[in-house]
Structure formats: structure tokens, C-alpha cells
């Protein structure tokens, strides 16, 4: 498979389109985000099919090579076309190239002008050296192997409050069985802790029965899309640029993405007039808009919405009868003193809107924040303002997958109920947490300033989340060179950057952007001691790129 990916990547870069080996209309639906011309609006984009039929696409020992595959029941021609249509650039072509480089780097150290690949493509903090919060992991270890709790030596190796907490959690699990499927919404006692955490955050009541625990936030988003989308006549308003989970999930469920553009000039502001315009436009095309997705703090754009703006959004949803899908996974990641995270639920409740006024789903994850526990796949959605018959349907869909993983559930409850002042671990917990958050703020600032110094680059400040999304004003010559290479100009830039520096970023076209503008997304996650070198490499690369292509 890897050989295939590599072979394919090579082909995609080097080759122009070739004749398809199996002529069929589905082939045209094979969209490769990084190679198509930027498609910024939601309408279907016809894209050249760029697959080669060359022999590099399969190894000889692999059964079912493409040449003989036409007799097989599932081929590219007969796969679900919705699968072909969906795209997910965060792990797309650039990442495949990076993996190939990383493998090759081990063998041919001297062939590259860099000695390591730095993955700034994905919000995966612990893969870049961020350490987990000790208290959380102590509790998880004790819950993973409960026999430890009976050993006296355990007291020498674990903090006393982690032991207490592990007992408390185990008492909430029927039979203390961390290896059992739980309630499909998640273990009730853990949902109680989460609801209490939400209450403490918002100052408004939260009901544990509204919480659905999920394997990361993404399955929750899929579940809601599944519920809301019956056909392409159902639309979901999504920000552009957007985290491609939304476009991918909408494509997989066969719905229509209705874009609304964030205003880069006003720090990626969300204008109600734009929402209205796009809603009307969708209606005129016969699309029923069912929901509005808002990512706050923004991904990839990093802005933190003002409370006033949030109130307008809530009113808009209420007035238009839209479900508000609030992606609030970066709620702990706010880096500027003049902005504060407010949950949409708090905003709605503080406006006096209750269960009957607005349907609101808030997504939270243990992958982000200061904890960054991506590999645990934990998260939840808080579902409010739905009738009981709809809630039953959500429960049913959740139950088909039985339950989310238990250590992810435990961690989600810990994140929402961390150590308190006076607890044994409190001081170390606070030191770890603040260390991570203040370092993230420093890194964000350093990178943002460095990017803004580059010729033709403007970068809004990262108020929150984990990303910078600079705009690159590419010279015409670079755009022409990209076209000649059958690559989107921003992907062209990102590949050049990767090959010159080992830095992996995601082209803006993977998130969609205003037509004719070019961006890339870069995480702020490399460890602080690596940032100066990254800045240097990036600056040098950009200068030589501009020297080569300046008009």
C-alpha cells in the first residue's frame, strides 16, 4: 500500500492526465483536492482524473492488480460514489509525500537539506513532543489495571488524589468493569461529571442525559449529519475556510455544503449578512438548509468569536429554524487576553432561550485544549433543544456502535473535572497546564510575526485553536508554474516548502478559500525550541521561492 501511495504520489506530481483504463462516468468523480483548481464554492467541481494506469500502482505480489480487477465486485467503478467524492486534505497527498521523504531520510541522510520532517499538518500535539498531563494518565493507568489499587507499592508511585479519583470512577462503572461496553451514551457517572463541568463553565444547568460520549468529536459530527441529511436537497451551512471534516461528512452522507465565507480582512469575522445571503441563495436552488456549523475557536482560521457575534448567530438560527452545530473543541485554546471563549449554550441561555427555542449541539474533544490526547479518541456532544423522539433516534444510532471507548470516556470526564485547589496533584496539574498553554501562545505569536514579515504574506493572529492560516500572494509566474504542473498554486507552494525544508503544511485549497486567494494551514505545535529553526527555514525558503518566481 505504501509503495502504491508513493508511486501514485510520484505520478500525480510528474504526470499529466492520462486516459482512464476503465472508462466509466464515476471516474470523473474522483476528486483529488490538492490537484484540482481551487474550488471555493459548494457547487460540484469537475476535476481532471489524474490517475495513471502505470505498473507502479501495484506490487507484483499483490493480488487483484488493477488490470484484472474488472471482474471483481468492488472496484473504483463500482464503489459508492459518495466515497469517491469526499476529500480530506489534512491527511492527503502532501502527507503521503512527507511520509515517503521520512522513510527515505533514514536511508539517504545526505540527500536532503534538512534532517527531519516537521509535521505541521495536523493538530496532533503529543506526536510533536507535548507531554500528557500526569494526573490524567495516573488515573487512566490505575483504571486500566485496577489490581494496582490493591497494592501498597502503588502509593509510592501514584499521587494520592489519582488513587482516590480512580476509585471514584470505578465506583461509577457497574462491576468496576472498564473492559465492558457501557451505556451507548457513555457511563452515567462520567456524564454526571461532564454535566457538572459544563455547569461550572457556563453558569447554566446541564443534563447528563443530554451528553453523548463519542470516540473523538468527529463521530458526533457524523451522527448529526446522518440525522440531518436525507439527500442533496439538504444543506448544511459551513464556514469557508473550514475544517474538512465537515465537507467530507456532508459528501459521505450525500448532502449539500452551503458555504459562508469568513471575512479575512476583519480577522476571519463571521457576518450575519453573509449567512443570510448564502441561505437565500441555497433556498433559490431548492436546497433546504438544515443546520449551521460554527467552529469556535476557528479551524483553520484561529479566530475567537465575540459574544455579541455569537448572540447574532443564535438569533439567526432561531429565526431560520436551523440546528446550530457548535464545534467547540478548541475551547481551552485561547491565547489573547482580549478574547474569551463563550459556549453557544451559555450565550443562548443568557439570551433567555431555552430548550424550546433553539436546537443546539456542542462538540467537545479530548484531542485539543492543553491535554491534546488525540490518540485516546474521546469526546462528547451535548445535545439540547430536541424533542424526545428525535433524541431516541440519536440514541439508536449511537447504540449501533455499542459505545465509545472507555479510557476516552474516563479522560473526557477528567478534562471536565480536573484537580481542584487543595488536591495533591493540583499544583503540578496547574503548572503543566499553564506551561503548555503559555508556550502555545508564545509559539503562535512567534510564528505569526515571522509569517507577517514574509514578502506577500499576511497572517491574522491566532486568537485561539492550534493553527495559523496565512494568505500568500503568489506571483503570476508561480501560478503559471503550478498550472503547468497540474497543481493548485497553494499545493505547489506547499510541496516546494516540504521538499526544501521538511516542513509539512496543508494547502488552503484543502479547506476551501475565496477564489483566487491562496493560503496554507500550519499548526503552532512544534516544541518551542524548534520554532526558531522553523522560522529560519521558512523565511529562507520563501525568499528563494519569491526570487525564483517574482513577477
Amino acid at each position, binding site marked *: 500500500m505504501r509503495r502504491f501511495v508513493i508511486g501514485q504520489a510520484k505520478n500525480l506530481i510528474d504526470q499529466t492526465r492520462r486516459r482512464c483504463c476503465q472508462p466509466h462516468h464515476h471516474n470523473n468523480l474522483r476528486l483529488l483536492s490538492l490537484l484540482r483548481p481551487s474550488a471555493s464554492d459548494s457547487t460540484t467541481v469537475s476535476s481532471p482524473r489524474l490517475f495513471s494506469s502505470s505498473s507502479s500502482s501495484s506490487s507484483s505480489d499483490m493480488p487483484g492488480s488493477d488490470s484484472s480487477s474488472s471482474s471483481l465486485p468492488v472496484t473504483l467503478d463500482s464503489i459508492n460514489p459518495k466515497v469517491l467524492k469526499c476529500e480530506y486534505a489534512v491527511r492527503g497527498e502532501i502527507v503521503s509525500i512527507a511520509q515517503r521523504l521520512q522513510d527515505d531520510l533514514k536511508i539517504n541522510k545526505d540527500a536532503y537539506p534538512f534532517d527531519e520532517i516537521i509535521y505541521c499538518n495536523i493538530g496532533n500535539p503529543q506526536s510533536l*513532543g507535548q507531554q500528557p498531563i500526569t494526573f490524567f494518565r495516573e488515573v487512566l493507568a490505575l483504571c486500566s489495571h485496577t489490581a494496582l489499587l490493591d497494592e501498597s507499592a502503588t502509593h509510592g508511585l501514584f499521587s494520592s488524589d489519582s488513587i482516590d479519583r480512580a476509585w471514584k470512577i470505578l465506583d461509577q462503572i457497574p462491576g468496576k468493569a472498564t473492559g465492558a461496553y457501557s451505556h451507548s451514551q457513555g457511563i452515567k457517572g462520567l456524564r454526571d461529571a461532564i454535566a457538572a463541568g459544563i455547569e461550572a463553565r457556563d453558569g447554566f444547568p446541564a443534563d447528563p442525559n443530554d451528553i453523548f460520549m463519542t470516540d473523538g468529536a468527529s463521530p458526533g459530527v457524523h451522527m448529526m449529519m446522518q440525522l440531518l441529511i436525507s439527500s442533496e436537497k439538504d444543506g448544511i451551512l459551513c464556514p469557508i475556510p473550514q475544517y474538512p471534516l465537515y465537507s467530507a461528512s456532508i459528501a459521505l452522507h450525500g448532502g449539500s455544503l452551503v458555504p459562508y465565507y469568513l471575512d479575512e480582512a476583519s480577522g476571519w469575522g463571521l457576518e450575519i449578512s453573509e449567512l443570510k445571503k448564502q441561505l437565500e441563495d441555497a433556498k433559490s436552488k431548492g436546497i433546504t438548509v438544515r443546520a449551521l456549523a460554527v467552529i469556535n475557536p476557528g479551524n483553520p482560521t484561529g479566530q475567537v468569536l465575540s459574544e455579541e457575534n455569537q448572540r447574532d448567530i443564535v438569533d439567526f438560527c432561531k429565526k431560520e429554524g436551523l440546528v446550530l452545530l457548535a464545534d467547540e473543541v478548541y475551547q481551552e485554546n485561547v491565547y489573547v487576553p482580549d478574547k474569551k471563549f463563550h459556549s453557544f449554550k451559555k450565550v443562548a441561555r443568557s439570551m433567555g432561550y431555552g430548550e424550546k427555542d433553539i436546537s443546539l449541539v456542542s462538540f467537545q474533544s479530548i484531542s485539543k485544549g492543553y491535554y491534546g490526547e488525540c*490518540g485516546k479518541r474521546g469526546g462528547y456532544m451535548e445535545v439540547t433543544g430536541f424533542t424526545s423522539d*428525535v433524541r431516541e433516534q440519536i440514541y439508536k444510532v449511537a447504540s449501533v456502535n455499542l459505545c465509545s471507548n472507555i479510557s476516552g470516556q474516563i479522560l473526557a470526564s477528567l478534562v471536565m473535572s480536573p484537580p481542584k485547589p487543595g488536591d495533591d496533584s493540583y499544583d503540578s496539574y496547574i503548572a503543566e497546564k499553564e506551561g503548555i498553554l503559555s508556550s502555545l501562545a508564545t509559539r503562535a505569536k512567534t510564528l505569526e510575526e515571522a509569517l507577517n514579515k514574509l514578502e506577500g504574506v499576511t497572517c491574522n493572529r491566532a486568537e485561539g485553536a492550534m493553527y495559523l492560516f496565512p494568505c500568500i500572494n503568489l506571483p503570476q509566474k508561480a501560478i503559471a508554474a503550478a498550472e503547468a504542473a497540474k497543481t493548485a498554486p497553494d499545493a505547489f507552494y506547499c510541496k516546494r516548502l516540504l521538499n526544501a525544508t521538511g516542513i509539512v503544511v496543508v494547502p488552503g485549497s484543502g479547506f476551501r478559500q475565496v477564489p483566487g486567494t491562496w493560503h496554507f494551514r500550519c499548526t503552532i505545535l512544534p516544541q518551542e525550541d524548534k520554532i526558531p529553526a522553523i522560522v529560519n527555514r521558512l523565511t529562507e525558503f520563501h525568499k528563494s521561492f519569491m526570487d525564483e518566481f517574482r513577477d
Partner: protein
Amino acid sequence: MALEYDLLNENVKKCQYAVRGELYLRASELQKEGKKIIFTNVGNPHALGQKPLTFPRQVVALCQAPFLLDDPNVGMLFPADAIARAKHYLSLTSGGLGAYSDSRGLPGVRKEVAEFIQRRDGYPSDPELIFLTDGASKGVMQILNCVIRGEGDGILVPVPQYPLYSATISLLGGSLVPYYLDESENWGLDVNNLRQSVAQARSQGISVRAMVIINPGNPTGQCLSEANLKEILKFCYNEKLVLLGDEVYQQNIYQDERPFISSKKVLMDMGSPFSKGVQLVSFHTVSKGYWGECGQRGGYFEMTNFPPRVVEEIYKVASIALSPNVSAQIFMGLMVSPPKPGDISYDQFARESKGILESLRRRAKIMTDGFNSCKNVVCNFTEGAMYSFPQIRLPPGALQAAKQAGKVPDVFYCLKLLEATGISTVPGSGFGQKEGVFHLRTTILPAEEEMPEIMDSFKKFNDEFMAQYENGFGYSRM
């Protein structure tokens, strides 16, 4: 209200999932009211007191808290081989349990899975065609999502079946094409029956695309013979069907005549043209076997004869979910490469796993015998898996009473059983059954020492139930 029930995706509304349906909800209510409930509705061994295997839990605990590995006192709590194994798995990750892995799972664990398959089957297995998943269910959903384009696409599913299949097909808007297992032949799979099902579906304009087999069977507990698997694979070859082999119960075998044999091995044994012409996806999990680690949500699927481009599409869809949870990936690694003879933890591991399997074997027998001693109940022996699926011959009086109560007859029976005994089962109608025939599914998982009492209480309820409805409204009065 923004989201009315009427506006919901019809496919969602159509979807049924009985394992956590009405009976389960009622049982949960009763439990809250303080009644002792014996949950036999889900194959969830640890919930019924099965203890986790020690060694894997030690390894995963160390991976959860890697700072323990630096503590000079770690040896007081953990054996050396668990420590070594934790270091091994951490070295396979890129940042420990807290970092997303490759969307297909950690390459090092996939390699261990491939080695396991090769040892098991005697044929090479390619780690690049193995994807780790959050439980087997996620894998089934991913594959069916690729196969089903719309309601014109049909999937052959055994009846009775594990409702994951019907639920997923319904969610994805496809058509379920049933084939009936033959209860009188110990739930045997008759290929003629398959042909009829396919012919009938095709006559209705359905393009049958794939076939599901569950081996050992859920809820039916039968183990397929090699000859039978050959017929099935030939059938898939001739009819151009993808075979989805649900083999999650491969460790759970309670008879010696038909040990588990994988579909992949049979397919490879058959040679050309079948071995290169049948697309097969095999599923496995850490939730079953003597592991029973349901709460971890770990599993894998292996694809055979999938063109690289299709594999790449499946990879893309997997990548949208970023990665399966990493601790369950490590459980999977441990499951396919358990302690070996000579390892410090081997004896304990072998003792624990053997103890669980032998006890399950005894429980399978106690349960089948118990059911067969009841009035109007007949039950095939549980050859494998974790379930007993007795047929309950309901007298007309019971059917009538069920009708009056507005319940499906077997739901009616199971609710009464629950109220009277606290035994929470799943009605056969949740799995599909021939019309007019009624069943229930229980797991064989309650603790062995409780088993006789449970079967006594079942028998008491059943025989009274039968007496009530036969005497009161039975044949004689109709």
C-alpha cells in the same frame, strides 16, 4: 423546533437495533428501581464478572503512564515482560497513546496482526491490507459504506443475524437480502437457499453486491465446516459478491469436531481462480474470545483481492476519523502476540485464558441443556460464539395476549421473563426469524456458579408461562 422527527433522515428512522432496544431500556429502568438484573442481552463478558487478563492490562497501564517506566520501583508492581512489552509498543507509536496514529492503525501493530494471520492460516498476509478499527463494528460500517450506493444495492445477510448488519445497511440506505439459516440442521447454511435469495432479489431489480457470514454464528452459535465455506466462496466467485467474514468469535469454540477455520485460509486453499477472484474482508475484535475487552473498542479488518485504488479510497474514508484509539490498538497487538512459553507472564496468561474458555464451554452446555429441559423450548447446541438462541414455541393463547398488549409475541415473552426473573434477553425478532417462529437470544456469559440458578429461574418462569397460556387460552378452548 429546528429538527422535527418528520424531517429526520428516513434511513435513520428505519434502522432497528434490538440489542439495545425496548428490552434493554426496560431492564435498565428496573435496575434503577433496585431490581437485580442479569444482563444477557449483550456479549459483554466483563460486565458479568469475567476478569480481564492480567498481562495485557499491565502493559496498557504502563503505556498509559509511561513515566512509571522511568521509576526505579516500577518492578515492584509490574513483571519484567510487561515492562518490556510496554516499551515495545510505545516505540511503535509516534508520541505514545496520546498521539493520533496512522489512520489505518500503527504500522507495527498491523505487522503483528499480519504475522498472526500468517501463523493461523499458513498464507502470507500483507499489513498494508490490514486496517485497525475502533471495534469490528466500525470496520463493517466502513466496508458497507464503500459497497452500498443506494437502495438498488443488496447485501446478503443471514437470518437470524446480528443486527449490526441490518442496522448499518438501513442507515446506508441499501437493501438487506436475507438468506435463512436452517434451524433443523443446527443453523446450517444451504447454498441452494442462497441461490434462491439472490434470484429473488435480482428479480426485484436489486443488484446483490456482497454477502455476510458470521462464523462462529451470532446469534446462532454454529461453526461453519470447511466444505460449507468452500461452497460459499465458490458462490461468491460465481455471483461476483464481496464476502464479509465476521470472524470475531474465532477463539470461542466449544466443540472439537469443527475447529475454527478462516475464510481466508479456505479461499487460499482453493487456489486459482478463486483465490484471486473473490474479494474478502475478514473482521476481528478484542471484544470477544477469552479477552472480552469490549470497552476498549479495538478491532481490525483484512482485505483480500482489493485493488490498490479501492484500498486507497477506504484509507481516505478512515482518515476522516483520524485514527482508531491507540490503547485498543495495543490490546490488538497483545491479542495477536500473547506471552510465549518461557515468558515470565506466560503461565498466568495461559491459566487465565484457559480458565475462561473452559468455563465458557461448560456454560454453553449447561445453558443448552437447561433450555432443552423447558416446556415448549428447543435449543441447538452452542458450538461457538457466546450465545444461545432457543426457539420458544408460544401457544396461541400467548400470541393472543401479546396481540392485546400490542407487542410482538417474543417481545411479550421476553418482557414477562424480565419482570419475573430479572433476566434481560433479546427477542428473536430483533435478529430476524422465520415467520411464526419465535426465539430469544441470551449470552452464555453469566458467571458459571450462577448458571444453575439462572436456568432454574428461567425454567420456572417458562413452564408457568406455558401452563398459563396453554391452560387458560390454549388449544382446547380455541
